[in-house]
């Protein structure tokens, strides 16, 4: 297998993009990433696009073909385009398919994109579409919502480890602060622990400010074999590991409700592939769809002992400048969570950090970065490790 590098990145603005369609935003991201790489459309061998639910959100399937067409890659070039779906992990999984395509030698220059246009439907319909990532027949039909599932994780985490609502709120406070330094973030406002605790209760103990928002946005990456990456850029960022793991679709069937075994196993595979340990990682973008999800993630990835995620967060160890900066982009919470784009956006953030281009949110001297993208309540986990050096 060949080593793979990322040579181009681009995020659109994240937020409620009323005036733009799904195809507009993903084309903006794709063309932007190709420009950033200094590549031409003709050189592209394949396109992978993560998208969770075009059918529910914009009444459009066949997203791969649509995106290739409006990126100018279809009518004359006929470049293969594949949509990848794993709920909220669709983006991370699209990146993984792109890496495997380049590593195998089947393709050289590949675009990995992700996009979701969620605000064309009302928030109730959007919530219902998102709930389809859980087990519709045995969770949804009992009245489960996504916040409800993560609330049950939080409730048991609090009961077992003494995690508090204030500690959960600290996750949101930190991520809003990080988001305030990210030009593309949906929310750039600073919030306080009290703001979170005083916001309306969605599913006890999760308040609305414990939840990631509904967002439009697209992100794209351009990948190349490491051997030719320097032809395109002075700062290629190398893939050290790509790993994926599955778990039961329903939360109630898990070995342990407060541990995402898919994350634990994917992380183990990723660390082994990269020959690295948690202490080697300089920053991580984790899947904070809810504040409790970030706490479980830093535990399951090995950055905090099980049960100590809340304390570690409240101590500032996950802030920029702390022991292990988490979600410098603002995370899903503040940067926004266009579900199909999130896994790609996480990679764009890590590449930006490792290039040293992250401005006010830069992690000084960052050498290794990680992304962690989750589908549903933990049935899919996709983890990547990136390095400044080959």
């Amino acid at each position, binding site marked *: 297998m060949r080593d793979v590098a990322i040579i181009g990145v681009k995020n659109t603005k994240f937020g409620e993009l009323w005036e733009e369609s799904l195809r507009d935003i993903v084309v903006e991201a794709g063309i932007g990433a190709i420009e950033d790489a200094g590549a031409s459309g003709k050189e592209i061998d394949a396109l992978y696009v993560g998208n969770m639910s075009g059918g529910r959100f914009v009444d459009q399937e066949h997203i791969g073909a649509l995106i290739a067409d409006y990126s100018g890659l279809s009518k004359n070039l006929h470049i293969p385009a594949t949509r990848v779906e794993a709920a909220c992990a669709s983006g991370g999984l699209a990146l993984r398919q792109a890496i495997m395509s380049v590593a195998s030698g089947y393709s050289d220059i590949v675009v990995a994109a992700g996009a979701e246009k969620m605000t064309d439907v009302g928030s*109730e319909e959007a919530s219902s579409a998102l709930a389809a990532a859980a087990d519709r027949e*045995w969770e949804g*039909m009992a009245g*489960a*919502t996504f916040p409800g599932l993560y609330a*049950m994780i939080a*409730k048991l985490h609090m009961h077992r480890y003494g995690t508090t609502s204030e500690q959960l709120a600290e996750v949101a406070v930190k991520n809003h602060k990080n988001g305030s330094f990210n030009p593309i973030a949906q929310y750039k406002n600073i919030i306080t622990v009290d703001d979170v605790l005083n916001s309306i209760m*969605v599913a*006890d103990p*999760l308040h609305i400010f414990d939840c990631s928002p509904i967002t439009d946005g697209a992100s794209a990456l351009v990948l190349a074999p490491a051997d030719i990456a320097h032809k395109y850029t002075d700062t290629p960022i190398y893939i050290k590991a790509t790993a994926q793991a599955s778990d039961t679709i329903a939360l109630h069937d898990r070995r342990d409700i407060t541990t995402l075994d898919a994350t634990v196993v994917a992380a183990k595979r990723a660390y082994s592939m990269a020959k690295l340990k948690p202490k080697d990682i300089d920053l991580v973008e984790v899947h904070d769809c809810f504040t409790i999800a970030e706490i479980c993630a830093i535990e399951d990835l090995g950055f905090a002992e099980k049960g100590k995620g809340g304390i570690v967060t409240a101590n500032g160890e996950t802030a920029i400048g702390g022991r292990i900066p988490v979600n410098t982009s603002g995370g899903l919470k503040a940067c926004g969570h266009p579900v199909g784009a999130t896994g790609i956006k996480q990679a764009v953030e890590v590449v930006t950090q490792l290039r040293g281009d992250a401005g006010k949110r830069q992690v000084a001297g960052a050498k290794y970065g990680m992304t962690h993208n989750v589908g549903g309540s933990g049935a899919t986990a996709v983890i990547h490790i990136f390095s400044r050096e080959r």
Partner: protein
Amino acid sequence: MSSVPRFWRNLGSRYNLEGTRCKECGEYFYPPRNVCVNCRRSGQIEPFKFKGTGEIVTYTLIHTAAEGFESQAPYTLAIIKLDEGPSLTSQVVGDPEKMHIGMRVKSIFRKLGEGGDRGMIYYGTKFTPADT
């Protein structure tokens, strides 16, 4: 919320807590599975009716209801571990203030939800504190 066939297909399971059991390794499954997670193709699956008693593993009080459940909000949703072993997701009927992790519960027959194009009402199993 859900299509009509999607609901009626599992009617026995939803009304009577009918699941399955693997004769090979002895593990019980609810919701029912046709492939044993331990033995896979060498498993021997048979129907099994659960007693309907168990305890709350974790729970939440849902304020922002799922589609089709708006009239029931706020409602308690829980993961319940049945005495035979498997866990399921269900509403728990009763005073939200009294819910707690480890609480003993038993199954009851109740309206589950409503919705869909035809305004269907769905019935099935919920749980209630066992001592009431």
